[in-house]
């Protein structure tokens, strides 16, 4: 659920937006035409009914013509069945078309999000982006189904009724229409005020939800600091405002419907006054008068409906604007015009005077240069915020550098085919990300090339096989939300199995900082040996055991590579550290 709602724009209708939305209807032109035809027919069928009654009264009942009446009743019945079919067809076609369009929009937005670069994700919280794909698209449903077409239908009905009345008796029709300006004014008054209170209510609901969500998550803090009373008061204040704004908005609804009824009654009274006069003169029949009274009631319904639909339309418009906002964001990291896929990629990594900042201002990496030969194991150490993870982000081309170059096998990553580039690497993150689905799905992800045997081999190699088999269902057992049923260590082992199953040339390892229990610790250390063997390794290392396994250690300090001198008590088999002045790396001593 998205808690923080996006604000509603003040503007209700946007022609440019509407035109763009209509383009989505184009592939369904046939269906839409059919539906429009059905609407026409069903409202025609409905319109004819009062006329039938009038004919029956004036002609058949007045003359006592039983077969005539029977004929009229049969026609009436036929019209009913006809109207039923037309209305059913209309709703079915329209709503189905709407669903097809929403399906397409959803797929479009989602596919586009898959193309947008990570910088975009940094700026837009996941919750917001989710709303674009789900709630916002659904809000458009109203626009396509009850919106565009039914508004059209309402307008058609309105026109039809007006034409029919004018046709039956234009003078009496004008009498009935005389209240129109009044009704338009009331509708306008209603729309304006309701829109305003609707906006306020929406804002308050968003605040209520946000407050609730936040304090449910942080209830321990509230309770620990004895702040229940004060928190309750603050919640109460929003709750009260929500109640009051809602109560205030009842006024408009409470007044609007009766006002429409009163105006309709006035129109009816006028029809009676003039109608009876003219009926007495013989200018019109009683049947026409009765039909007019019936028409005049139907006449006001579409106007009231249109006013009510306005809010829905407005929310839909706002959603459309947000959706197009995503679709109109061009992906910033583009594939090169002629992507390079080196024939024999071995994973030689080279950082050449790399400067990088996430925000173009605060440089996270400053003139970093080093080379990693295929088969080398390189550990990166350094304090939080020293730029360790950034190295990995640049290698995978999640971001582009500001200055300098990142080369893989001698080719700038910006010239690589990005999918081929990433296929070289296996990424193991500190926070293991698990997907809902089976254990096997989480190891192979979407890669159908990795068969069950390969999954089992990988899991076995990293000591995950035993705990997986201990679960009911084994590899086919499904994971709870974010792998809640697994321990931290087990999740870590799963992510190792995933990396191993993809068999990458280069392993990128962002090691977890917090220690796990001793038994798992031993398993993890051993599993690490397995996945590192025979590969180039670039590891953000925290564990001493990992650091000891490395051929080379890079020390990052505030975005710069430090020299080796600072390390004391450091004897194991690795040599250390490169200076930032040259791109050589000390290798094994």
């Amino acid at each position, binding site marked *: 659920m998205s808690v923080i709602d996006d604000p509603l724009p003040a503007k209700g209708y946007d022609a440019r937006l509407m035109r763009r939305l209509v383009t989505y209807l184009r592939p369904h032109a046939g269906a839409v035409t059919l539906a429009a035809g059905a609407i026409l027919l069903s409202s025609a069928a409905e319109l004819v009914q009062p006329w039938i009654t009038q004919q029956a009264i004036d002609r058949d009942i007045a003359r006592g013509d039983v077969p005539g009446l029977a004929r009229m009743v049969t026609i009436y019945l036929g019209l009913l069945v006809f109207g039923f079919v037309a209305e059913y067809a209309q709703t079915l076609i329209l709503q189905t078309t709407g669903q097809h369009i929403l399906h397409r929009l959803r797929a479009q937005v989602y596919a586009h999000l898959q193309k947008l670069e990570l910088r975009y994700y940094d700026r837009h919280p996941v919750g917001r982006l989710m709303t674009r794909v789900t709630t916002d698209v659904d809000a458009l449903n109203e626009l396509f189904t009850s919106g565009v077409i039914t508004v059209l239908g309402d307008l058609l009905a309105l026109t039809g009724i007006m034409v029919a009345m004018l046709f039956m008796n234009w003078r009496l029709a004008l009498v009935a229409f005389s209240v129109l300006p009044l009704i338009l004014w009331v509708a306008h008054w209603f729309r304006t005020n309701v829109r305003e209170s609707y906006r306020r209510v929406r804002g308050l609901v968003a605040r209520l939800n946000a407050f609730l969500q936040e304090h449910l998550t942080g*209830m321990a803090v509230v309770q620990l600091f004895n702040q229940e009373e004060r928190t309750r008061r603050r919640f109460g204040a929003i709750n009260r405002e929500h109640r009051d704004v809602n109560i205030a908005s009842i006024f408009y609804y409470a007044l609007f419907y009766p006002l429409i009824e009163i105006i309709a009654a006035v129109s009816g009274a006028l029809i009676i006054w003039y109608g009876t006069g003219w009926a007495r003169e013989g200018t019109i029949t009683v049947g026409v008068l009765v039909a007019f009274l019936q028409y005049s009631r139907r006449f006001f319904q579409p106007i009231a409906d249109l006013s009510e639909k306005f809010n829905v339309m407005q929310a839909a418009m706002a959603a459309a604007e947000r959706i197009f906002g995503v679709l109109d964001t061009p992906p910033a990291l583009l594939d090169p015009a002629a992507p390079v896929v080196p024939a024999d990629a071995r994973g030689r990594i080279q950082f050449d005077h790399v400067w990088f900042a996430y925000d173009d201002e605060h440089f996270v990496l400053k003139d970093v240069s080093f080379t990693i030969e295929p088969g080398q194991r390189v550990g990166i150490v350094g304090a939080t915020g020293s730029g360790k993870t950034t190295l990995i982000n640049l290698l995978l081309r999640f971001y582009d550098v500001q200055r300098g170059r990142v080369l893989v096998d001698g080719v700038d990553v910006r010239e690589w085919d990005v999918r081929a580039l990433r296929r070289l690497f296996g990424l193991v993150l500190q926070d293991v990300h698990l997907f809902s689905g089976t254990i096997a799905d989480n190891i192979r992800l979407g890669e159908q090339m990795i068969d069950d045997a390969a999954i089992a081999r990988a899991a076995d190699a990293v000591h995950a096989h035993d705990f997986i088999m201990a679960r009911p269902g084994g590899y086919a057992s499904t994971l709870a939300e974010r792998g809640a049923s697994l321990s931290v260590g087990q999740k870590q082992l799963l992510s190792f199995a995933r990396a191993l199953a993809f068999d990458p040339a280069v392993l990128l390892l962002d090691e977890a900082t917090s220690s796990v229990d001793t038994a798992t610790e031993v398993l993890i250390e051993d599993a690490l040996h397995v996945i590192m063997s025979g590969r180039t390794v670039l590891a953000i290392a925290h564990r001493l055991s990992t650091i000891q396994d490395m051929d080379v*250690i890079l020390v990052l300090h505030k975005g710069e590579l430090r020299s080796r001198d600072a390390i004391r008590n450091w004897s194991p088999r690795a040599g250390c550290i490169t200076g930032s002045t040259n791109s050589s790396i000390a290798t094994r001593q």
Partner: protein
Amino acid sequence: MIKALERLLPYITRVRRPVALGLACILFATAISLVSPWLLKFVVDGLLRGEDRTRLAWYALGIVGLAVADGAFRYFMRTQLIGASRQIEYDLRAEFFAHLERLPQAYFEANRTGDLMSRATNDLSAVRMMVGPALMYFASTALGFVVAVAIMCSIDARLTLIALLPLPGVTLGTRYFGRAIHDRFERIQAQLSDMSAVVQEALAGVRVVRAYGQEPAEVARFARANDEYVRRNRGLIRLQAAFYPTLTLCFGLSGVLVLWFGGRDVMRGTMTLGEFVAFGRYLVLLSWPLIAFGWVINLVQRGVASWERMLEVLDAPGIVETPSTAVSTPIRGAIEARHLSFRYPGAETDALSDVSFVLEAGETLAIVGATGSGKSTLVQLLSRLREPPPGTLFVDGMDVRDRPLAELRAAMAVVPQEAFLFSETVGGNILFGVDADWGSDETRSLVARAAEGAVLSDDVSGFADRFDTVVGERGITLSGGQKQRVALARAMLTDRQILLLDDTMSAVDTATESAILHQLRDVRRSRTCVIVAHRISAVRDADLILVLAAGRVIERGTHESLVALNGLYADLERRQRLEDELAHA
């Protein structure tokens, strides 16, 4: 169902005046709206009989007058009844939230936030629909139906019966469709939440998806969810498309029957034309109550189900307070654990087993150990976020369970493992623990001092609006270390007798950590401290260090004695020294 509704009565009784007034208005409005077709009968019959125009003018005026009176009553009906339902909603929401505040921590772990949220929002609004619009429409439609049928019977009983023939179909149809539509709607909602989960995972795990080149696989996975969602929606559409036309058809059939049989009556002279026309109008008036009735039944069904879901939360037992009769004295801060064992409900092994220690007021206890060794559990038991077994944990010699909870917590400042910040200003977050609102000069200086103590001042001076900078989605995103220090400042500001730090510096770099430790030195002189940490640097000058493994104390002593022991602690110390040197090389 009746039991559940009884529980709702007190809330309704509280607004009995507007409800009674609203219901009375319905009575009048219904009576009036039924008179106006009658006037129409006079118009038509009068016209045929050749009555004079002034008389007809009076009828016309009468129709307008009735509409005005009807409108007035309906206006009050709506404002009173819907207004009352908003008041009930307000009361329920306040009560619901107040109850949530009384629930123990375990409850929030056993129930997902999303689920509780949905009870507080969707279910609450379903309950409001039941006590507001549903009640209003039920009263007005039931009344309208009875009176309209009575009048129709008075015109022509036989014709009424004939006209009503197709109508039970309407109500039954509404119920059938309503229930089927509801079921399909639920299935759509379930699929929507599945689809949302797919999106959420792929977006939150964007790094993994990209790194493993799984964009096409994710697009395909989403397409499957999307297809299924549309498929279920189309199932609903097929029903909905048939629903309203069916209703229209039923009413139409009534109309046809009236036209045929009524028309014959008029020809035979057993019925006047005016009566015939009025009869038709009443029939139209009937159509609305019948539709609304089915709709009301659905609203009530949904409302009761929702209310039962809300009651599940409202009936969950809150934290049990069993203060002893002994007079509690102000807390000095001595802490003692006596053979403390604790097991999470449903767990197979103890999270803590046989832990004992004595800490004098003003001393510092440090706890180290691997993830899952029981460190946080100990802190949560001390602050009674979880309930320790009786006779195991004592503050100033008194069982923590015997003291009023508010009193115990008023003596403690806790910095939980995961720093939780509210999306308000940085200053407001730091001030959270005291009952004061952010903004005055006095609170500003308090907050500034606490921030100083938590080594946060430099960070804050880099924020656009300093302490007035809003935290979270609408403002600045703090790093993990900054969040932890805000939470630390929050605890420091409360200046309590006992300070509990649950691994509060895990995301803080070592330089900042040592600055914080330096600041803490003053606090620790006069306060009792319990520090859970991973890093030796944070615990080395504690009066007592406990090393936990799998819930047991395996080593205990001071830093020097533990290093001399050359066990797990000494090993940890050695590793960290090397790692730190690497990091600071």
